[in-house]
């Protein structure tokens, strides 16, 4: 029953959405709307589940004073400071909720956002270091990749564009047409079509009960 019921729900839900897509909505009523509302509500619960999970995982090391427990404590404190005031009603205090001027907003603008931006910005340093140490023209394919990357990197910035225009005024447009709109698009289409077929196959496997990892079973 534990396995059959979720498979039956998955099969019927999938079938209902396919039916709505194929049939005229007037014939099937607002079934699609109802199902989608259910999905958004369940999506909300998954966020709550995520919070419960992160608290449970980090609570234990703090209680047991395991190695690095201070990091876990900092994470729990951050969750509490950001989450609790954000869910309290604004009518109680303008500091609650997520609007401008709230506790959540202050922490988000002054801590969370700069930290995320810093993490992302550090990629520039790692990419530069990796470019120096790892991008080697060892064979024809690697050389081709390096040359294309160099051309596109130059084309994407004004100084490179200036160099290309100096060589030939139409060169930046030719790169856009033949590299980005030609070779690149051909490869991207293959990837997109492959990924779409994979997604369709996975959906079918879930509907037919072949794919069961979402139930925690293989």
């Amino acid at each position: 029953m534990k396995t059959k019921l979720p498979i039956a729900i998955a099969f019927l839900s999938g079938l209902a959405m396919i039916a709505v897509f194929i049939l005229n909505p007037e014939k099937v009523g607002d079934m699609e709307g109802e199902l989608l509302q259910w999905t958004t509500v369940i999506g909300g619960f998954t966020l709550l589940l995520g919070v419960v999970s992160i608290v449970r995982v980090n609570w234990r090391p703090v209680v047991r004073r395991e190695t690095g427990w201070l990091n876990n404590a900092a994470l729990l404190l951050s969750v509490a400071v950001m989450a609790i005031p954000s869910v309290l009603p604004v009518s109680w205090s303008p500091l609650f909720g997520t609007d401008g001027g709230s506790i959540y907003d202050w922490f988000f603008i002054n801590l969370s956002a700069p930290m995320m931006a810093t993490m992302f910005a550090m990629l520039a340093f790692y990419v530069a270091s990796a470019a120096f140490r790892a991008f080697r023209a060892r064979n024809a394919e690697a050389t081709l990749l390096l040359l294309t990357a160099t051309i596109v990197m130059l084309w994407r910035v004004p100084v490179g564009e200036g160099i290309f225009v100096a060589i030939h005024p139409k060169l930046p447009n030719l790169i856009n047409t033949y590299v980005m709109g030609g070779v690149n698009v051909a490869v991207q289409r293959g990837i997109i079509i492959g990924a779409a077929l994979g997604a369709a196959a996975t959906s079918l496997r879930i509907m037919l009960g072949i794919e069961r990892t979402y139930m925690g079973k293989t």
Partner: protein
Amino acid sequence: MDFWQRISQLDRRWIYLAVALAVIFPLLVPMKMKLGITPEARQLYETIEALPDSSVVMLTFDYYPSTVAETRPMSIGALHQMFRKNLKVITMTTIPLGGPSIADRTMREMAELYHKIYGVDYVNLGYKANYTAVLLGMGSSIESIYPSDQYGTPLAKLPLMQTVKNYDQISFIFIVADNGIVDNWISIVNAQFSKPMGAGVTAVMAPKFYSYVQAKQMTGLLGGMKGAAEYEMLVNKPAMALIGMDSQSLAHLLIIGFVIAGNVAFFVTRKKKESKG
């Protein structure tokens, strides 16, 4: 140890220092280099420009704070154009962490600049979980997915939303994103509801979406900070993206320089080893 051996064993801290200088220096001393506009950016601008005044458009804030340097200038550029043309703007986000805050701040800032009234000229729907259901559900009824806006006001009380029930009343969708959500906008909203749309995405994502532009599933595309800078030029509001292009220019040149130096050092030292051994 000869010169090329020294180069091949260069301490990575020198590389980090060079990158830092390449990024900071142009911010202190702007170079103001000339920038060309790609056809994809121009198409996006012209599509919005061709919309009749007072048309309803949707602008999404589907990005995390980590990429605001690339994406936020696109949102600001789009809002300059939309508000200047008196278009009615509906915004939303599929990003729970930061999306609502960025949307709220940007909309308030721009609305104040153009004296736009909330609920009449623009509406911020905020965030709802499960983006696939959200994008699909808004096709039949926006109110069923978003019973209230970002601030808890029921949609029925907002004058703009009394005329907008689903995608049928929205003339154009401008997606600004730093993740794979653009695929869903295309496959769900464009394919199933035939809604015209364009996108502004981060530089690493942009190559993927050229295929959608060619297939006319998207009317235009802004790629990375360059795309944002192009849009700033198109709306004639030069700002952060154009300033940032100088830093990006030097950083790209530096990385290309590192690739060349690394390869020369690698091959020269390998040849020497082979000739000795």
